[in-house]
């Protein structure tokens, strides 16, 4: 083999403490090194041309550059050698700047170290193979999991870009938590008024296929070519024929079903359309409360449905969709405040969560928009809001801030004054987090214009006295204990990961943190990508956030997908694992350990099984290589021979 070694001086960055001429001279004595030189700035245009010239003149088959970190300039030099006609993987770098010249001044020792590093790079290069990327076609359809505002935004942006979208939502209607909100901060817009048109768009756009009341059953494949199985859950109503007239809901005798959309406040019928603006506007039966299913007799809805859409024998159905990219927008759930024994542990009907109060405020809520106490239906006079319930509290495993509660407390307090001008609102807070545009001004308005009393302190206990509640807390600014008698206590319950988030993550093969929030590729620079190629994140599933941020991430994820689909084919990274079938003993250890499911069985003639790597799914971690007992599977460009060659150079 004919190898060329180029030792960069990098001005004085390297040459200052390393004798680069000596390194090049030493390199010429290594076997297979046909050419070695020292150069001032190898990464510069003339420097690269020098490499190309040397490759041609000296008939070089591989190049070693001893210079800065490969994390800096490996792509630069790979392009340079490719232009000279070599495969870009017939190139190695020795880091003699960040790892040698910049960390010490002993010229002799640095030079010896640089020589060793060049020797190791040459040793590895001897075992390098030309690697060719594969071109795989891209299926320009995108799956959006979750029909909340982030998912809706992502779907609309993709559809706008002429892509086919498949949206899967597990509830019978899209809209997510935003559909349950009454008004949104800081503008006090009506939530359904701004979300409603977007929801309608989703249902009406021709290139969006909506599967509501459906969940992801399984996902196979890889970026550009995913195969998704979707379970359409039985709603016992044929949505092809149901017109959403609501007659069934009117006549259903089973009237005491706890209303999930209203967070358990108020009741709904066993057959119902979840809320007036529901999309799809179709009825569905809750089999746990329907008299036909629980007692075997009724069937009123079936008799009166004008479209004959009721089907008690309906089963779940599995449909298969093929997509090229996936956007995960599964949102959040609320922390279960019954963990806090001191706040009543879910026992007192007048101690409610933030979302429950939101439903009470809503005109389509259990009390028609009139604020009432859940216990006796009377109008409250004094309302206490307690911040940070299930947030910023390591003792319940939630040390993080949920980011939206300070704002929604202020909003709810303002709305309370609007609904009940004679009422008094108190807020027990630790800090006020109001970072967004117009957010801090909004909180100030609550205090200064709407007369909401902000008390800085924690609440120690909430307990009943007569038919009111007593909230016992501290006011740290005054340095006193405070007791407030309230008619209604609203807990600003924090955000936690959506139920079932971890199961979905396993199916998608994406990571999640200890709270169940999905992990982004990089917290600052890649917030909507995951480490799994082709899977993107949007919204609260990635971490607690407000509506503007969720919408921004929805659009961001859509942009990433559109960039991916800008090409008809994608090139795989050839630094992936490869199986030498002759050496494979079919022990399945590689298949077991691969974190990405990139290895599957291949059947040869005679029922012989061998492992086979899917080059588009393999991420190049090398776990399989380290695990394989016969080393049949080798991570290309980081093979055993390559690593051992470098190791052997150091063995005395």
């Amino acid at each position, binding site marked *: *083999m004919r190898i060329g070694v180029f030792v960069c001086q990098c001005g004085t960055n390297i040459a200052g403490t390393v004798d680069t001429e000596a390194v090049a001279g030493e390199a010429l004595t*290594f*076997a*297979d090194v046909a050419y070695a030189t020292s150069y001032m700035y190898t990464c510069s245009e003339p420097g690269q041309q020098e490499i190309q010239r040397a490759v041609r003149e000296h008939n070089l088959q591989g190049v070693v550059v001893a210079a800065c*970190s*490969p*994390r*800096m300039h490996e792509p630069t030099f790979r392009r340079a050698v490719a232009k000279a006609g070599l495969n870009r993987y017939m190139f190695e770098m020795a*880091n003699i*700047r*960040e*790892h*040698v010249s*910049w*960390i*010490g001044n*002993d010229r002799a*020792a640095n030079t*010896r*170290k640089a020589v*060793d*590093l060049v020797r*190791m790079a040459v*040793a590895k290069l*001897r*075992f390098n*193979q030309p690697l060719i990327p594969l071109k795989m076609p891209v299926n320009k359809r995108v799956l959006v999991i979750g029909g909340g505002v982030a998912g809706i935004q992502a779907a609309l942006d993709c559809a706008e870009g002429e892509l086919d979208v498949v949206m899967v939502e597990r509830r019978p209607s899209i809209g997510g938590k935003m559909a349950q909100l009454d008004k949104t901060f800081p503008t006090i817009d009506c939530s359904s008024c701004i979300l409603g048109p977007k929801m309608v768009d989703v249902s009406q756009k021709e290139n969006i296929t909506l599967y509501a009341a459906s969940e992801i059953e399984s996902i196979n494949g890889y970026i550009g070519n995913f195969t998704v199985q979707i379970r359409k859950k039985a709603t016992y109503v044929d949505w092809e024929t149901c017109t959403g007239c609501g007659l069934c809901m009117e006549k259903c005798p089973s009237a005491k079903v706890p209303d999930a959309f209203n967070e358990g406040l108020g009741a709904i019928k066993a057959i119902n359309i979840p809320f007036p603006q529901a999309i799809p506007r179709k009825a569905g039966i809750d089999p746990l409360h329907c008299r036909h299913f629980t007692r075997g007799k009724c069937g009123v809805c079936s008799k009166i449905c004008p479209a004959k859409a009721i089907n008690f024998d309906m089963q779940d159905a599995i449909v298969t969709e093929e997509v090229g990219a996936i956007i995960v927008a599964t949102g959040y759930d609320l922390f279960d405040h019954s963990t806090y024994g001191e706040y009543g542990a879910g026992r007192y009907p007048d101690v409610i969560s933030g979302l429950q109060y939101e439903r009470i405020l809503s005109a389509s809520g259990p009390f028609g928009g009139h604020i009432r106490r859940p216990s006796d239906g009377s109008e409250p006079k004094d309302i206490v809001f307690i911040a940070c319930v299930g947030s910023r509290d390591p003792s319940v495993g939630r040390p993080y801030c949920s980011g939206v509660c300070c704002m929604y407390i202020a909003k709810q307090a303002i709305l309370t004054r609007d609904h009940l001008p004679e009422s008094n609102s108190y807020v027990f807070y630790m800090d006020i987090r109001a970072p967004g545009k117009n957010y801090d001004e909004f909180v100030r308005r609550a205090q200064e214009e709407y007369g909401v009393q902000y008390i800085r302190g924690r609440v120690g206990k909430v307990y009943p006295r007569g038919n009111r509640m007593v909230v016992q807390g501290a006011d740290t600014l005054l340095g006193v204990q405070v007791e407030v008698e309230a008619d209604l206590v609203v807990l600003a319950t924090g955000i936690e990961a959506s139920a079932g988030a971890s199961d979905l993550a396993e199916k998608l093969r994406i*990571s999640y*943190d*200890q709270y169940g929030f999905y992990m982004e590729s990089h917290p600052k620079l890649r917030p909507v990508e995951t*480490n799994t190629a082709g899977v993107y994140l949007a919204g609260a599933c990635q971490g607690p956030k407000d509506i503007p941020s969720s919408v921004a991430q929805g659009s961001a994820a859509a942009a990433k997908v559109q960039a991916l689909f800008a090409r008809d084919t994608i090139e795989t990274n050839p*630094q992936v694992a*490869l199986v*030498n*079938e*002759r050496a494979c003993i079919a022990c399945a250890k590689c298949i077991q*350990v691969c*974190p*990405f499911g990139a290895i599957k069985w291949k059947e040869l003639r005679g029922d012989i099984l061998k492992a086979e790597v899917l080059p588009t799914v393999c*991420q*190049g*971690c*090398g*776990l399989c*290589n*380290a*695990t394989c007992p016969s080393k049949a599977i080798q*991570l*290309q460009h*980081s093979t*055993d*021979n390559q*690593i*051992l060659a*470098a*190791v*052997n150079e*150091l*063995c*005395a």
Partner: protein
Amino acid sequence: MTDSNPYSTAATAEAAEQGLKILGFLCNWCSYGGADTAGVCRFRQPTDLRIVRIPCTGRMDPLFVAKSLIYGVDGVLVSGCHPKDCHYAVGNLHARRRLEVLKSFLSFMSIDARRFHYAWVSASEGQRWQQVVTEFSEQIHRLGPNLGVRKQPGENLKPLDGQKQITIPCPA
């Protein structure tokens, strides 16, 4: 290295003066970045370390460490992403079990386990990298050159085929 007998006292002293050879296996995403950061910040370190870049500590076969120490490398340092921060999700979680088992086994097989160390250093932890390298280098200097497992001094350790290339075409 010269051809002289590496196990006479003079040669040992010379070896120590020339610097010992510490082999480092660093994962590309975190620790190699951390070493780069240490370089960018000009954090001084001893010169004994020779780094091999691997994609992930999950790539680390414990046998790389074993081979190195058996064949006389003075010290081996493996460093990767902090557990749960692995770029490939779980590579370092496999690695830590395997390397911990190896560490205990090395000592039983009469290889000084103090010559092997593994650490978790992220790409931003330049100072921590400096500390890890300095402390480990000092430890190796205290232990001196590694005579490996040879029975007779002078038994040539270097594997015979160090310089020859063996090209086996990659199966398609």
